[in-house]
């Protein structure tokens, strides 16, 4: 299994954990403080989720890359698969941005705009991971 495949799997798990953690915090706050969901202080949890998730991901990449030290880390195939998977994820993320824009024109609370971007961003990372693994196992179109 290449470094990329390993970091993809770890990244998927990390993503799921941080994503669920974020929503758990938000929902718990809404329930315990007895406020509507959109009035919960969401910026802190979201920033933490992104930073901590990102840091852990970078750490896992560093560990796997160090384990594979000395071998050629990534070649043309890895690069192509990575770009292809990222563009697939970007397609999904684009829909999230469009939804966010529509919400902004409808004057929807920023909470929903941000959490939509956050959630669709997470889905995009899932698409990225899925396409990456599939490309390694079954080949790229």
């Amino acid at each position, binding site marked *: 299994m290449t470094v990329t495949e390993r970091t993809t799997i770890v990244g998927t798990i990390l993503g799921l954990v941080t994503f669920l953690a974020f929503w758990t915090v938000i929902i718990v706050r809404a329930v315990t403080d007895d406020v509507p969901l959109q009035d919960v202080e969401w*910026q802190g949890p*979201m*920033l933490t989720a992104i930073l901590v998730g990102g840091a852990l991901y970078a750490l896992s990449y560093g560990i796997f890359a160090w384990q594979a030290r000395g071998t050629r880390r990534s070649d043309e195939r890895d690069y192509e698969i990575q*770009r*292809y998977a*990222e*563009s697939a*994820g*970007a*397609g999904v*993320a*684009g829909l*999230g*941005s469009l939804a*966010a*824009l529509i919400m*902004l*024109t409808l*004057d929807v609370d*920023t909470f929903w*705009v*941000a959490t939509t*971007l*956050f959630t*669709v*961003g997470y889905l*995009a990372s899932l698409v990225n991971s899925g396409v990456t693994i599939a490309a390694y196992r079954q080949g790229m179109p």
Partner: protein
Amino acid sequence: MNGSEHKLPREPHRPADDEPTVMGMDERAAWVQIFAFAITTGAYLAVVIPRVLNDPIDEVEWVVPLLWAMGLSIVATILGSIFAGIGGAIHLTIRGLDPDSELASDSRDKAIARHARLRTYWATPVVALGALILAMLDVDTFWIGSFIYVVTSIGAIADAVVRIRAYRRGFVG
């Protein structure tokens, strides 16, 4: 080189080697994309920037101009493609060539489209992440909405530019 048969219009004929042709449909579509996005985004900014300079931020009316700009860019793209197609067909008929075979899309067009997408998809995560950060900073929705719209347009224009360069200057795998 034979003499008189290069006057237009010409009879329908099978094209000779290196006989000049017109721009393909996909390249035309790329030009239409550039113009549609550049003009509508420019118009949006032209309407909205004076308002930003004159009014307090939370009173800037940006939603209506944005919706107009988005609607117009869709209409402009559709109409532009239709006219580009008609123009191409007329031009080819004058030259005695067959629009169906000269203007068709083939695997090269798909390869170029794919190449452009792979080169310009970075715009999308920039838009999403940037908008998220702006939302976290609690800036006025005008900034978030305009950021999404303008950077997305830049991405679309970049995509079209990459495609046109690939058609004109050459494109290797």
